[in-house]
């Protein structure tokens, strides 16, 4: 199997507090990897360190290795390029207060694309890939803030796709959405994995079983178990995993 990203013996500290303890997970290419676990277990922290969003946090210290296509992402790789290759969708939909078109064009423009024709094409393609083209094609010049929460989140996915990333990180992307919007986004994710490697943090275990290929279970900063999703949920090797997925705690 081809590994797109590798997380090797990562320890992460917020000042004195250790948020991740010796975590090792290989991330398979063009698959969906789910991180599950109770709040505060470190799964979001790990996700954010995969495109160095933790750089913004004061006192955050990371040890170990994280690789993208075998290249050390903390070793001299340009952060802006890393974030172009490893895109992110956030927990709360966060479209910029500009038009739908400009929201999508923001990323490509950032990376130097100026031609109107090229931008038009990227906007259309991104919106189509995020399955929101039909809802937006007649109102591209309208503000993105006028859309519903679910539409906004799909717009944010389109925005992440606009810079043609290789990996997409999703931090509980449906936790602020209603069941119908959630369903649409889950459908979308299964489409996305044909082209992209997807890593998703979720609180919703049903969601993990529905969409992910492999699942990693986190507890108190430790990666307890990583396996094929079906195995994790039907036949967990660790007692702690079993306790969590059967609802004994968390």
């Amino acid at each position, binding site marked *: 199997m081809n590994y797109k990203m590798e997380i090797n013996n990562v320890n992460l500290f917020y000042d004195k507090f250790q948020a991740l303890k010796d975590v090792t997970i290989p991330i398979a290419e063009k698959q969906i990897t789910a991180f599950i676990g109770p709040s505060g277990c470190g799964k979001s922290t790990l996700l954010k360190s995969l495109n160095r969003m933790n750089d913004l946090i004061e006192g955050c210290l990371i040890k170990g290795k994280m690789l993208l296509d075998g290249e050390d992402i903390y070793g001299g790789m340009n952060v802006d390029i890393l*974030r172009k290759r490893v895109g*992110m969708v956030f927990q709360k939909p966060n479209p910029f207060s500009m038009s739908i078109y400009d929201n999508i064009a923001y990323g490509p423009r950032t990376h130097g694309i100026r031609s109107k024709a090229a931008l038009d094409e990227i906007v259309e393609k991104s919106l189509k890939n995020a399955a929101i083209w039909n809802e937006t094609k007649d109102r591209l010049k309208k503000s993105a803030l006028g859309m519903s929460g679910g539409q906004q989140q799909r717009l944010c996915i389109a*925005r992440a796709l606009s810079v043609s990333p290789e990996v997409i990180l999703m931090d509980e992307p449906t936790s602020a959405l209603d069941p119908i919007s959630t369903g649409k986004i889950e459908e979308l994710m299964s489409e996305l994995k044909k082209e992209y490697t997807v890593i998703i943090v979720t609180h919703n275990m049903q969601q993990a079983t529905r969409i992910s290929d492999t699942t990693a279970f986190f507890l108190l900063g430790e990666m307890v178990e990583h396996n094929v999703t079906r195995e994790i949920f039907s036949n967990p090797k660790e007692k702690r995993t079993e306790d969590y997925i059967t609802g004994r705690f968390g």
Partner: protein
Amino acid sequence: MSKSEAINYIPFKQKLRGYLKHPMSLFLLILVIGAAVITVGLVAILLGHLLIKGIPHIKPHLFEWKYTTDNLSMMPAIINTFIMVILTLLIAVPVGISSAIYLVEYAKRGNKVVSVIRLTTETLAGIPSIVFGLFGFIVFNTMIFKGYSMIGGALTLSMMVLPIIIRTTEEALISVPDLFREGSFGLGAGKLRTITRIVLPYAMPGILAGIILSIGRIVGETAALIFTAGTIPGVPKALTRSGRTLSLHLFELVQNPQAPTDRYFNAAYATAVVLLALVVLVNALSSFIAKKLSSK
């Protein structure tokens, strides 16, 4: 449907009975209504007095291009006021906004330097304007420009409005949710692009409010300008010469040794009305712009 049919309608009699049962709450009600009436009344009396005394004396000769002791024209002062506002903003706005951007976006949170800068701006805001005037007089008039000058006045006023601009811009920047910054960084945008394209546009209404507040301060300032920009009643040929703004013009009219004559006083009232109108205009314009920007 008539009002009395509405189930949430309480008839006056019933209300009165309620109040009579609780005399303390009736007393408090009268007290708060009284306070509101006094506040509105004071403003009404002030404005009324000013308008009644001033408007009849707004005459064409007050708007002649050149000031003479015969026409007591305020036109040069109006022009000077605009010059002073633009000059001061040209100095204070770039410095103020840049400082605020540094404080919020670049300086590490909890940094020692930041708390020192914050303390300094707060102190600056609390200094009486006459003290600024004295400082400006010593530095700009005696050391740099050798005499009263518009530019000296503008520099002095810049120091005065800087804290306003820094504080309001800071507040505006802080109010921009981190979500938007993360969204921009997440797409591979750098800090500069994130600030100029995402953060600043979002914070613009707040920043604008600070600038408007500053304009009000500049238009209304007298004490600091007496010592720095001086009181020459004409439009100066160069920014290094003296020129009086509208509020200084008003001050000088009243201060004039011949002032207790009607002519000077009437001109002063008329000037006050124009000054007031100017400030109201600035405020209206600002709220209009702020609404336009935030509704976009």
